[in-house]
């Protein structure tokens, strides 16, 4: 399995750490209800198909990435930097 880091280029999957769905990027604001926190931390669409999930180039540039990926075929159709996205 290979991922293309926007900064480092194509690298082996061994260099990356996987976190989970991109839901983790949408942190509830202060004062959010516990139900919102439950949804943020635990509940997932978990689709069999194209998802956006979070990977960390731990053995590379230490950038967090949003990877657009198919969970059935493992095809990767996009990789972007979390930090760029948040701006």
């Amino acid at each position: 399995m290979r991922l293309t880091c926007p900064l480092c280029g194509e690298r082996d999957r061994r260099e990356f750490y996987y976190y989970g769905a991109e839901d983790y990027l949408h942190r509830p604001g202060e004062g959010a209800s516990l139900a919102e926190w439950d949804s943020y931390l635990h509940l997932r669409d978990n689709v069999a198909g194209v998802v956006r999930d979070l990977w960390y180039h731990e053995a590379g540039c230490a950038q967090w990435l949003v990877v657009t990926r198919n969970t059935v075929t493992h095809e990767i159709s996009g990789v972007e930097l979390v930090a760029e996205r948040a701006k």
Partner: protein
Amino acid sequence: MRVDGKGLIDRTKPVRFRFDGRDYAGYKGDTLASALLANDVRLVGRSFKYHRPRGVLTAGSEEPNALVEVVGPSNKTPNVRATVQEVFEGLVTQSQNRLGSLRFDLLAVNDYLSPFLSAGFYYKTFMWPRAFWEGLYEPLIRRAAGLGSLSGRHDEGVYEKAFAFCDVLVIGSGPAGLMAALTAGRAGADVILCEESHALGGRLLSDGGTIGGLPAGDWVAQVVAELEALPNVRIMARTTVTGAYDHGTYGALERVGLHKPARPNLPRECFWRIVAKHAVLASGALERPVAFENNDRPGIMMASAVRTYLNRYGVVPGRRVTLFANTDQARGVARDLMAAGVTVAAIVDPRPDASSVEDCPVHVGAEVIGSRGRLGLSGIQVRKGSEIIEIETDCLAMSGGWNPTLHLTCHMNGRPRWSEELAAFVPMEGAVPGLVAVGAANGSFSTHGALVTGHAAALKAVEALGRKVSVAVPEAEDMPYRIKALWAVEGTGRAWLDFANDVTTKDVKLAAQEGFRSVEHMKRYTTQGMAPDQGKNSNVAALAVLADATGRGIPETGTTTFRPPYVPVSIAAMGAGGRAEGFAPQRFLTSDQASRDRGAPMIEAGLWYRPSYFPKPGETTWREACDREVMMVRQAVGVTDVSTLGKIDIQGRDAGRFLDFVYTNTFSTLPVGRVRYGLMLREDGHVLDDGTSARLGEDHYLMTTTTAAAGLVMRHLDFVHQAFCADWQVRFISVTEAWAQFAVAGPKARELVQSFLETPVELPFMGEAPVRIGGVDGRLFRISFSGEEGYEIAVPTRYGEALFRDLVARAETMGGGPYGMEALNVLRIEKGFITHAEIHGRVTAHDIGMEKMVSAKKDCIGKAAATRPGMWGPEREQLVGLKANAPISAGAHLFVPGTEVHRETDQGYVTSVCWSPTVGAWLGLAFLKDGRARHGEKIRLVDHLRGLDVICEVTNPVFHDPEGEKLRA
């Protein structure tokens, strides 16, 4: 029997080898199978279940029968395919899966019991009495099952792993593969050509013929010579591509040294990870047997194997050969045999419209219906209409047609497509992105078809790479493939489908009869296709028999899935590098050697090695050393290396703000030159880590983490920063390995530390200052993990060892010395400091009594989720101390004295214990339900495993200097 003038073996290089205690002669270039057949050894193994006599069936890695053990000087290897193993001088082999000798295998009695050993019989019996399963039935079954055996000794062989990258990976070096490699190679692409065998050429080496007017062998030699000369082409012989994985990654196994006598440092195998932009699958096809009664005797072989043994190895596996085949292609086998002077007793062709013109008797529209010969074939029965013909023959070459070797195309869940025309499954296009099947692997069975499709696939890859090339495809035979599918001959006896697992047509029919009609059910119920050949020889026929039994067509019946690896791969090869210390990186402290010099046992702490204790002459147990070191710290001064703690340098205008966000407490208000203890939560509200952070400058902090969580915290900080506050002015980097850091603790710590400083510095408790030590810039922190006045001195790593040696030497002049992990642990328990024994991932700030450290004035990671109702309150277990006069243990559970001991009455558990030489008692840290309200209570500690049952006192977790006077002194 060896035939003169045939074969690619090197007759100038004879080799001696051994099989089952007898010495035999072969030649360089022989496989064990060809050499045994040359010596007229037909019986080479016993079958899995019925222990039937078995001989060589094939000439390739798909071999189901001829599995042997190779006995090396230091170890043996089971289940080696005699058809793949090359002979070399001194090779020692033996047969396997027999009780007694190969000729008189006592377990052959199973063959007579076969009516009772039908598919799935074991699910229906061995149930009574219950206790007999583990005691009697299972051991008997286990002993009878299995094939070869492991020696039980460590595998000390050398194995390697490697990565390789290429533009075009060509899998297989038959006509299609060579043509593809030549095309891509001439275009200048980086090509890797993998060939499973030791020689390139694939079936061209067996079948002969002409290509572009040249004898096929000459064409192969010419192409190989050109490829070898191309710097951009890498030829990997003896290399089987074993798996197709995501994004152009392939696994491949190279047999590096298995064909040579063992010698030190000669790798046995190398497991390759090949990353290819394009791949051309030119793996050919596998010939399939026909099921008829007793079709498994030694001497019954695949027709193509007979041809391979003749043309490639100069061996005929019999004196009177019969051919039973349903394609025109297979006729070449008989012609080659006759041309070599071998008697062909007959050709049996089930196709009614097949040609009967050959130089031997031909029975058209006939079928082989049985065989005889106890340990080897002596004759067959042929049915032609109502006529039964007996034929004396010692070798039956059979062919039921061909199955494309499409396994790799299924490794990413691709399902093959059924071709009525070929009566075979062919690869689904695009099943593995970037991989194209060509030649026989794609159902193009003629040489011409192979060359054309190999060329076309390579050309397409080359074009995608932006290269151009023009290569002419040479002329070659283009015989049509005409087949009438024949899976199983009608009959009442046992006709084998899966030779390796002893699955017959009866078993498949029985499975259907009992409702196991799905192909997966049939496979699992009968074990069809689960043997070492993974159904390479039998799956399609079994499926056809099932389809017939259930009244469905083959396409509706479906297939089971081929999964990696294509051929079995040794655990040692895929696990190369993992042996012994190779399993994980080793991290050594700068003080490592100095500690070892002092006799300290080094123990694993994550990836690090840390000293356990520093024994003194006369000390016989670790406890003696530990108690001494504890009292040394309490009464004088101790030195220990704490460099394993994670250190993260954090800078920027928003550094303080960032720390406020990741810690529960506030760091933006910390004055420069001060240190603060911080608690970090996971976003789910549990404690992630704790540690101290120092403010080195207005926009500059240094965070420390625990040893265990250093990597975890770094990753967490990167996430929080990049995901939630990427626009903040803050940057950080791990400096763990940049600094060596030593804790100096005890009443004389200040004196020892000051003696090292070029300029004396008076630090308050939790103070920090830059210092110079021996001409080197360092940092001094006044922090303590022992409860004594404590300092930590940090210097650049390269000075670590020198500083440690000096610190220890000078400490010793003051009644102090080094202390290890054991003493460090006792010191921190006495002081009630927690480690990951306590913050084990299920613990909240509330549980450890630090809920007040969660600032009410600001948001932080984990704050919200920690307010969930289940995360706090008296029903949870809270950190307490335990004190006892008898030994106590970590892992024990706590109960109210006088209550019964079981799950429902469980009150908590112990996380850390020690004998405290300071307090003179056994101390523990524990989590106890509503523990903070129960200080002073008696509690019963029960450790069934260690046989402890002790009454303890529940206390405040801080036993030593609860007011912290010593720390602040």
